[in-house]
Structures are given as structure tokens and as C-alpha cells.
């Protein structure tokens, strides 16, 4: 007979960490309240007959929020065999409030005091045996994070299930007990004895859901109501408040006898950190610095190193396990020899010699030696002298070499080094697959589909996986240590000024991983007006799928400049803040900001396991997407970019005559004012609607990432030639702010649940993306190069309109209507 253990406790008390440790599951863990919003089940490690159910964190068994309803319904309807109540040892008073309610349910309870490592570190003492006596249930000390005491807690729960009854030790004052007895007698005599207590208290509190569940008659309800009113008159308070205050009085008496706090009244380590990171003046600069470091390291420094390896190595020509530096030196020397030939031919042309014949023969596979010798003879007689400036990677001049006819002749004999001759060389995926397809005599069109379509497209996306994993490690660390919860608190101060609540920041925070759950998380916002505004603005924050676009633009167009990646995050934040101001000044959104109440969890050092698990879950979903929807999209893009109608028949054509080129050319003029009116960029932006990574995949095919890398030329050279810096940044900003992918658009549609609101949301996102990109390109062009035209006028008019909407006076809206608050301000 299987035993069910229900894990119940306050939000952020460590239930999911314990659940993962007990069952070996990989459920998402975060150090902020409300990570788990639904029940999850797993089997106990080493005893498969025991089912462990992880419930959402709750503060009480009153149905104030959806999570509390889920947890309460499970406990009272499914009646688990035992409740393992996890409580935060550093905050016993608040946590025991729920414990006093759980012990009334008639279900055996075992108490697991979590974070005992922190309690001991603080020098505090909890007398667990005394606490067990007071509460009438077994008490176990654990640290879910460090894994201490957890199996003992599970064993105690299994032993308790069905064998021990938990009888609540606490009682209420005489009048309340009298009323409860009255209620039991009037309405609950059909229930088993151990369940009557909890139901009578809930009826005393006028819990509507319980009244409905018990299907009480009007007469019974009136009878109970008379008893309650009489009690309320005596206490001069409402029934719910009477029960709450008596519970806390009881808890206080327990705490006095069982807990010794070493430094009572002094600040904890978390409090001390919070004095700095949530300080009125320092909070925002610290937040900005943290996010700058996260994006800078992820995309520019460590990220660039690993992504270069992935793009140029794994999905490029290949990489060296050993001997890489020797090859690089040889390749550098060969490049110098190649440049010597180039500069000498240029100098010869400038000296009036005919260099076309020799240039042509040098480009052929077997150069005509006679032509070459004749040219050298002419050049020596002239004489032609050339100079070559050798620069380092940053473009700094290293040395200037003189190139003579003899040097030219020597340079012609230089052979390109084969990377396989240096150390251990691992060829890249396109090289291996290409060789295989050649060996089996595969048709050229199929080689094209696999190499130039699938590998170029999917490879271009997968090449950014290492960069994303680094970003996900940072985000997981910030989430687990407790800083993310502070960011919501910090942002509330800023958001509130601009019409958004800090509550809106939770969806935005989740949206940094994926916009879909971010949009869905807006459901926790009670105010419909604020919820809609959050749905509209959440996808402005760069999600994981936009990271490849940021990294590609940063690497290919800005040579990995330090400011590009962090600026994309801050552009997203600025768009959210500005949208808050603009929308709040419209009739649709005018009104007070909803209140924001959130418990700030204690800081703790996250475990490597939790961080790696979180990183892998997010990264794996990205890889899965590349292997499914992105792969199909790349096949479609390859087909439409390689086939079309030419000379009245359908078949393989030049890319410029393809179906995609024709379709892209129709929409490209729309983006010309933004600086990227070429059909390839327009098509990439549109394919990004399928999934944002598709922008990179489409570039991979249309700018032939696989092809150029096989030639040994810089992978992104064709792409970088197609954009100016301003146009590239305008393209990046447009893709960051415009309508998100179809999945997120679907989520917006579901959350808005109204066609009008849905179109308003999508239209707003597209308009704001267009206006911001237009201003960046046109005004950038005007201020940097002095270009003035109709586009500049449009740019200035857009800016003026934007500023007007931003700075115009506020409208007075309807007063805010919200549901009950369910958090506790710590």
C-alpha cells in the first residue's frame, strides 16, 4: 500500500529543494517566494512505495491566492497519509502560524525545521524536544540545501503515517472554544472526530468555500452565524482576526520556551547586505552594475571565447586540441605572404604596369608560369616597390615591410598551412559531413540542403549555446542567492514612479529566460489594468532566444564591443519604463498603481547542483527548439532562397531570383528608413516571428556562414559588409522590441482574452520598435555624418511625438480595485 507524504510549508522555506533531494527530481528551485505554483509528485529514493507531493508554498490554509487553494484542496480532499511540514528555522514565528493550522486537519504531521545550518551559524538555539511536546508532533532538524537530516525526516514521516495521530495542543480562549463546540454540534457531527476541529474553525472564520463544500442549509448557517456574532460582540473583533491573534499569542508562548536568539535585535547578515543593495541611492547603480557584468561577461568576454570556438570550430572549419598556436603563427605568416602579393600587384598597377593577366592567372587553379615570369621581369625592370603595413588584431601598426619583385616571387610559392598538420586537429561538423556526402557521391542539391541549409542555419543558432549557458549560470546564481527578489523590490520604487508596480517585474524577471512563462506570470497581478500593461511590456526584456541575435550583431558588426550586449538589456528596461509612463497617461491605463507586497528571502550561497540544473533545463529547451522548429524553418528558408522561377520554369536559381528574394523585396522598402532595407534583413526579421533564434539561422543561410567558413575566410564577413554600424544597431533594437515569437504572441492572445486588447498589444510593440529604430538610425546618421533628408524629418517628428507622450500631464483614472494581499513584508 503506497504512502503519500505531502510537503507543506511557507513560500521559500525549501520544500522544492527537499523534494528534489528526496525524489531525485529536477524541479526548478528559486530563492524567491512563489516558485512552485502547482502540486508535483515523485517517489522517495530507496522506497518506491512512498509518494512525495510538493505543494505550493502557503502562509495559511485560508484561500487568499490560487496557490493556497491548490494546497488546501489537496490536503482536505486527497487526505495524504502524513504531512511533512517544512519550516524556516530562521523565522519560526511566522512559519508556525501554518503549523498550528496543519495540526488541526486530522492528518499526522512531522515538523522538519529547515536551514538549521544557518540557525547554528547565527548562534541561535531551538529546543526541538520541547517544541515537539508543545506542538504534539515529531520535530526533525534538517538542512535541505546541504542534505543533512532529510532522510531522517522522510523516515519519521513514513513511520508516522497511519500509526500516530496528531492532536492539536493549542486551544483558544473559552468563548471561542465554546462557539467551536457549538458549530461542531450543529453542523459537523457527520465528519470523523479528527477532522471536525479544522472544519469548525473554518466555519467560525466564515470560509465561503468550506460553507459551500459542506452544503449547509440556510437554517444551519443562520444558527452558526448567531453563535459567531455573539463571540465577535464579546471580543469586539471579527472572527478571523480573533483566531489569528489567538494563534500568534500561542506561538509567542511556544517561542519563549523553545527558542534562544543569540543576537536579538541585531541585524542578520542578510539585513546588513540589504542595507547596501536596497539602499535608496545605491540600489539602482548596483543593479545596473550587476546586469552590466552579467551581459558583458556572458556575451563579450568568456562568452565570445566559447562562442568563437563553437562557431569557427564545431560549426566551422574545425579546431585544434593541441598545436593551435603553431598553426595560428603559420596561418599569420601565410596571410602576410598573401598580402605581399596583393600590395605588389596594386603597386605595379599604380606604376603603370599591366597586372591584370598575372592577377587572372594567379586566381586560376594552375597559374601560367610564363605569364608570372614575364610580369616579374617587367616589375623588376620598372622597378616596382611596395610597402606592407602589418597590424595586430586591434589594428595597431606592428611593422612596415618592403616588398620587392623577389619577395613577390617568394610569396607566390608560399603554401597555405593545413591545420591537420599541426597538433591534434578536429574537423568541424560541416567539414566532416561534407566529406562524407562527397564520399558517397550525394547529389549536389542534397549536399546544399544539408550543408548550406540545415547545418548553416541550425549551426548558426547552436553556435551560441555556450554563450547562453554562461548567461543562464549567472541568472540561476542571482535567482538562487536571493538577489533577484531584491531587484523586484528595487524596481518597485522606480516602476511605481512610472506607473508600473514591482509586481510587474516578476513576469519580466521570468521573461529573461522565455517570454511565454513571463507573460503567463502576469496572472499574479490582481489589477486588470496593470496586468494588461505588464503583458504588453514583458517581452521587451531580451529573452534567451534573443541572445544569439545580440551576440551575432555584437560579434559581426561591432567586433565584440563591450557595450553592445549590456545596452540591449538596458534598451529593453528603458522601453518598459517609457511604455509604463506613456500607457499610464492614456485613458485605457490611467489610475493608481497596485500595491506590491513581497517577502524578501534570506541570502544564501546556492549549491553548484542547483545552478547547473537550472542552467541545463533552460539550455536544453533551447537545443530542443533548434532541433525541431528551427530545423524545419531553415529547410523552408533554404528551399525558398534557392528555388524560384527563371526563364519561365521553376527550379534552382540564383539567390537574387529566388522566391524568398522576391517576397523579401516586397517588404524590404518598409525597413529602408531604419537602415536595413535589403531583402535578406527583412526576411530575417520576419522569420524571427517563428522563433527569435531564427533571425540568426536565416542569416546563416542567406549570408552563407557554412560556405565562407569552409573557404577559411572570416565567418561573418559577408554579413558585416551588408550593414553599417548604425543600421546593425537599429536592426538589433527592432528585433528586441517588436512583436515576439508566435508562442509568445499566442500567450499574449490568451492572457488578453480579447481580440481588441490583443491587437493593441501587438500593434504597440511593433510601433514602438519601428519608432525607436527609426530614431536610432536617422538621428544617428544626422549627428554622426550630417545626412539630412526626409528620413531625418521623420526621425525628429517621431522623437517629438515620443517625448510628447512621455512628458504630457497625467490623466486621473479610476481608483484601483485589487484582491487581497497574500504576501508578508519582511
Amino acid at each position: 500500500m503506497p504512502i503519500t507524504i505531502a510537503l507543506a510549508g511557507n513560500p521559500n522555506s525549501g520544500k522544492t529543494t527537499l523534494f528534489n533531494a528526496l525524489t531525485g527530481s529536477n524541479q526548478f528551485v528559486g530563492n524567491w517566494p512563489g516558485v512552485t505554483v502547482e502540486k508535483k509528485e515523485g517517489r522517495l529514493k530507496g522506497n518506491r512505495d512512498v509518494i512525495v507531493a510538493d505543494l505550493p508554498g502557503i502562509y495559511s490554509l485560508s484561500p487568499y491566492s490560487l496557490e493556497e487553494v491548490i494546497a488546501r484542496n489537496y490536503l482536505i480532499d486527497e487526505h495524504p497519509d502524513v504531512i511533512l511540514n517544512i519550516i524556516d528555522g530562521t523565522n519560526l514565528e511566522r512559519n508556525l502560524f501554518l503549523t498550528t493550522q496543519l495540526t488541526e486537519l486530522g492528518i499526522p504531521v512531522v515538523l522538519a525545521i529547515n536551514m538549521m545550518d544557518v540557525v547554528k551559524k547565527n548562534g541561535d538555539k531551538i529546543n526541538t524536544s520541547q517544541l515537539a511536546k508543545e506542538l504534539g508532533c515529531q520535530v526533525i532538524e534538517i538542512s535541505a540545501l546541504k542534505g543533512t537530516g532529510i532522510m531522517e525526516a522522510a523516515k519519521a514521516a513514513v513511520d508516522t503515517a497511519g500509526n500516530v495521530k496528531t492532536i492539536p495542543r493549542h486551544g483558544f480562549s473559552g468563548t471561542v472554544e465554546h462557539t467551536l463546540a457549538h458549530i461542531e454540534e450543529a453542523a459537523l457531527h457527520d465528519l470523523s472526530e479528527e477532522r471536525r476541529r479544522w472544519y469548525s474553525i473554518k466555519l467560525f472564520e466564515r470560509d465561503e468555500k468550506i460553507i459551500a463544500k459542506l452544503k449547509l442549509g440556510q437554517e444551519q448557517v443562520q444558527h452558526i452565524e448567531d453563535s459567531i456574532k455573539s463571540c465577535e460582540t464579546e471580543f469586539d473583533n471579527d472572527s478571523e482576526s480573533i483566531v489569528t491573534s489567538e494563534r500568534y499569542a500561542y506561538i509567542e508562548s511556544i517561542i519563549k520556551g523553545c527558542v534562544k536568539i543569540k543576537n536579538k535585535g541585531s541585524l542578520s547578515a542578510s539585513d546588513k547586505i540589504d542595507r547596501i543593495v536596497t539602499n535608496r541611492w545605491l540600489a539602482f547603480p548596483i543593479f545596473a552594475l550587476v546586469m552590466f557584468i552579467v551581459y558583458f561577461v556572458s556575451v563579450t568576454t568568456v562568452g565570445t571565447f566559447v562562442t568563437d570556438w563553437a562557431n569557427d570550430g564545431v560549426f566551422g572549419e574545425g579546431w585544434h586540441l593541441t598545436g593551435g598556436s603553431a598553426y595560428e603563427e603559420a596561418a599569420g605568416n601565410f596571410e602576410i605572404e598573401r598580402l605581399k602579393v596583393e600590395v605588389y600587384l596594386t603597386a605595379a598597377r599604380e606604376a603603370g604596369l599591366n597586372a591584370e593577366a598575372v592577377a587572372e592567372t594567379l586566381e586560376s587553379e594552375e597559374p601560367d608560369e610564363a605569364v608570372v615570369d614575364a610580369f616579374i621581369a617587367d616589375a623588376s625592370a620598372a622597378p616596382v616597390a611596395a610597402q606592407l603595413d602589418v597590424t595586430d588584431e586591434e589594428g595597431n601598426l606592428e611593422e612596415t615591410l618592403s616588398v620587392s619583385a623577389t619577395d613577390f616571387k617568394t610569396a607566390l610559392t608560399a603554401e597555405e598551412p593545413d591545420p591537420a598538420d599541426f597538433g591534434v586537429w578536429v574537423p568541424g561538423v560541416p567539414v566532416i559531413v561534407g566529406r562524407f556526402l562527397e564520399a558517397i557521391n550525394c547529389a549536389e542539391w542534397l549536399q546544399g540542403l544539408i550543408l548550406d541549409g540545415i547545418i548553416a542555419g541550425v549551426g548558426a543558432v547552436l553556435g551560441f549555446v555556450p554563450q547562453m549557458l554562461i548567461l543562464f549560470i549567472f541568472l540561476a546564481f542571482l535567482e538562487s542567492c536571493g538577489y533577484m527578489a531584491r531587484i523586484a523590490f528595487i524596481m518597485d520604487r522606480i516602476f511605481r514612479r512610472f506607473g508600473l508596480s514591482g509586481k510587474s517585474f516578476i513576469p519580466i524577471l521570468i521573461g529573461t529566460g522565455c517570454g511565454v512563462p513571463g507573460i503567463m506570470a502576469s496572472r499574479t497581478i490582481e489589477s486588470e489594468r496593470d496586468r494588461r500593461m505588464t503583458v504588453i511590456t514583458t517581452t521587451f526584456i531580451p529573452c534567451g532566444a534573443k541572445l544569439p541575435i545580440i551576440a551575432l550583431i555584437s560579434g559581426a558588426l561591432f567586433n565584440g564591443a563591450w557595450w553592445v550586449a549590456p545596452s540591449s538589456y538596458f534598451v529593453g528596461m528603458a522601453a518598459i519604463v517609457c511604455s509604463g509612463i506613456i500607457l499610464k497617461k492614456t485613458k485605457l491605463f490611467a489610475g493608481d498603481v497596485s500595491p506590491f507586497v513581497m517577502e524578501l528571502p534570506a541570502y544564501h550561497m546556492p549549491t553548484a547542483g542547483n545552478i547547473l540544473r537550472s542552467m541545463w533545463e533552460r539550455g536544453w529547451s533551447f537545443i530542443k527548439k533548434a532541433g525541431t522548429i528551427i530545423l524545419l524553418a531553415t529547410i523552408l528558408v533554404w528551399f525558398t532562397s534557392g528555388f524560384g522561377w527563371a526563364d519561365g520554369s521553376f527550379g534552382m536559381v540564383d539567390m537574387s531570383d529566388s522566391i524568398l528574394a522576391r517576397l523579401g523585396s516586397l517588404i524590404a522598402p518598409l525597413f529602408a528608413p531604419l537602415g536595413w532595407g535589403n531583402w535578406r534583413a527583412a526576411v530575417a526579421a520576419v522569420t524571427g516571428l517563428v522563433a527569435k533564434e531564427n533571425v540568426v539561422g536565416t542569416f546563416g543561410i542567406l549570408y552563407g556562414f557554412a560556405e565562407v567558413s569552409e573557404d577559411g575566410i572570416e565567418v561573418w564577413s559577408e554579413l558585416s559588409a551588408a550593414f553599417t554600424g548604425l543600421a546593425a544597431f537599429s536592426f538589433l533594437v527592432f528585433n528586441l522590441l517588436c512583436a515576439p515569437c508566435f508562442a509568445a504572441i499566442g500567450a499574449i492572445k490568451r492572457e488578453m482574452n480579447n481580440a481588441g486588447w490583443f491587437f493593441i498589444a501587438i500593434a504597440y510593440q511593433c510601433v514602438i520598435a519601428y519608432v525607436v529604430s527609426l530614431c536610432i538610425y536617422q538621428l544617428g546618421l544626422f549627428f554622426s555624418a550630417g545626412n539630412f533628408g526626409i528620413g531625418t524629418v521623420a526621425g525628429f517628428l517621431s522623437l517629438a511625438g515620443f517625448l510628447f507622450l512621455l512628458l504630457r500631464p497625467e490623466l486621473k483614472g479610476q481608483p484601483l480595485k485589487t484582491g487581497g494581499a497574500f504576501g508578508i513584508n519582511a
Partner: protein
Amino acid sequence: MFVFLAENIGTILVGMAVFGIVSAIIAKMIRDKRNGKSIICGSDCSSCRSNRC
């Protein structure tokens, strides 16, 4: 016929493999769609905050 097969066996095998992979992907996406999962959002639905309704 045999000559054609012998000359194009590589293309046929690779083509069939690509076709098989693409078919499997489409079949999985249809299956996921029928099971109410998103075919574009690659997130793990079991741990998704939005999976509560």
C-alpha cells in the same frame, strides 16, 4: 534501374534519412500540439509557472 540505384544510392539513403528526421519532427510537433504543449516555446512545461491552469 539497377544502374540508377547504384549511381544514386548515397543520395537515396541520405535523402531518406533527412526525410525520416523531418517527418519525425513534424509528427512530434503534432503530438505535442494535441497534448496541449507549445510547439515553439521549448521550455519544460512541467516546471513552467504558467502550467497551473
